């Protein structure tokens, strides 16, 4: 009998097609609660696709067909009963390109809460502040909360998107290459933030930066052509990969 852990994922025989193109082939892994899991692999191997299955973002893509099961805690998120809206609240997502809404910094963070029906100004203000503090952005924007979010730098915008995700008090944050467009300092801030957030959230992050995976993640999954070739402790995978394909990829000799 399977032991389900709150906030963790158990993925079984997950297969995904875009039309008749197989994008994920029989994925079977357990993702650990309150740990950082990095997804690595060459472009087009299915990392983003996999990430999107975890909060059913692929449902929005026409002719996308998913098979198998993803347990989130004890709940199979692909079952009929699963509430997708609530699922996406609990499992937030941050994308590769910062995508703030064209509204004020404050409204960006408050938006989701308002959609949930929260109207009390004091509650909203407190929640926005907390999210901005947690996303390590508050000090930089506290005097300009009414300004457009688009006036922020790329790194600040990305942290705003993280704040927006955190504001919904999710259990899990999915991140798809969150620092690929950022400079080393902004990247370092996000990485530090991820390490901080890990105390409260389960984080799954796609990255093309091997050193980043090494710095911030506890577990790493190596994807290749829609399959997981190797999955294990990050320190192990980058020092003693078990599969020669993993070694070829992480040492840059993949061909």
């Amino acid at each position: 009998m399977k032991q389900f852990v709150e906030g963790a994922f158990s993925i079984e025989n997950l297969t995904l097609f875009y039309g008749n193109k197989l994008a994920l082939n029989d994925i079977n892994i357990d993702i650990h609660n309150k740990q950082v899991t990095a997804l690595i692999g060459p472009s087009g191997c299915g990392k983003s696709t996999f990430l999107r299955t975890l909060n059913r973002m692929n449902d929005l893509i026409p002719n996308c067909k998913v098979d198998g099961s993803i347990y989130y805690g004890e709940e199979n998120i692909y079952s009929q009963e699963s509430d997708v809206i609530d699922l996406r609240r609990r499992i937030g997502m941050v994308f590769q390109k910062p995508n703030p809404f064209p509204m004020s910094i404050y409204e960006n963070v408050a938006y989701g809460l308002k959609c949930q029906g929260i109207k009390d100004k004091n509650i909203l203000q407190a929640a926005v502040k907390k999210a901005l503090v947690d996303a390590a952005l508050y000090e930089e924007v506290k005097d300009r909360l009414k300004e457009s979010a688009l006036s922020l730098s790329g790194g600040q915008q990305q942290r705003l998107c993280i704040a927006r995700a955190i504001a919904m008090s999710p259990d899990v944050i999915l991140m798809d290459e969150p620092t690929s467009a950022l400079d080393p300092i902004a990247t370092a801030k996000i990485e530090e933030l991820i390490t901080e957030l890990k105390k409260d959230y389960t984080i799954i992050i796609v990255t093309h930066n091997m050193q980043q995976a090494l710095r911030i993640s506890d577990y790493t999954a190596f994807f290749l052509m829609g399959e997981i070739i190797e999955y294990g402790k990050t320190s192990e995978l980058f020092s003693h990969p078990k599969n020669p394909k993993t070694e070829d990829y992480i040492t840059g000799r993949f061909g």
Partner: protein
Amino acid sequence: MTYRVQFEKELEDLKIDLIKMGDEVISNIKDGLKSFLTMDGELAQATIKKDKIVNDYEIIIEKKCLQIILKEQPVAKDLRLITAVLKMITDLERIGDHAADISKMTIFMQENTKPYTVKQMALMTEASQKMIKKALDSFVTRNLELAYEVINDDDEVDEYFLQVKKIVAQAIRNNEIDADYALYLMMVAKYLERISDHAVNIGEWVVFSILGEHKHDVIF
């Protein structure tokens, strides 16, 4: 097919430099001992001078390793390889110092110092040279068994050292050996014994480069 052609080339270059450094060191041991046994002061001077080449190799290889770490951010077996090289050159450099030390014994000897032949000295030199060569070969060919062989070969050199000590002690008791010469000879024997210890260290780094274990501890 590999995508990191330049990186591969840099790693190959590193191995070639290491072998060249090893060749210099081996040749200096040979010349150092020859200078001692034949009391050839000129050869001793030349050998001491050549140690600079060894020292220069250490710096060149060090720089290359650091550049590779900086540019290529190696992981897994690549990181083990570069770390092993950085460690091995320290031992090779020390071996080079000992070859120079042996040559210095030649220079310290006076014109009137009377030599005394101990055949184990040549055997010991040969054995320690072989150990260095074997250690470097095992690195380049990633031959774990050969690396373990080097680690075990040390016993042979230690045994020669004990034999030399015994023979010299006997010769002293029999008044057959010049007192100064006896001291110099023992010093040279000790240097050779130390050289083989460094060869063992190199063998241990070869094991690390292959397994990530150093003296049975997994360190990477």
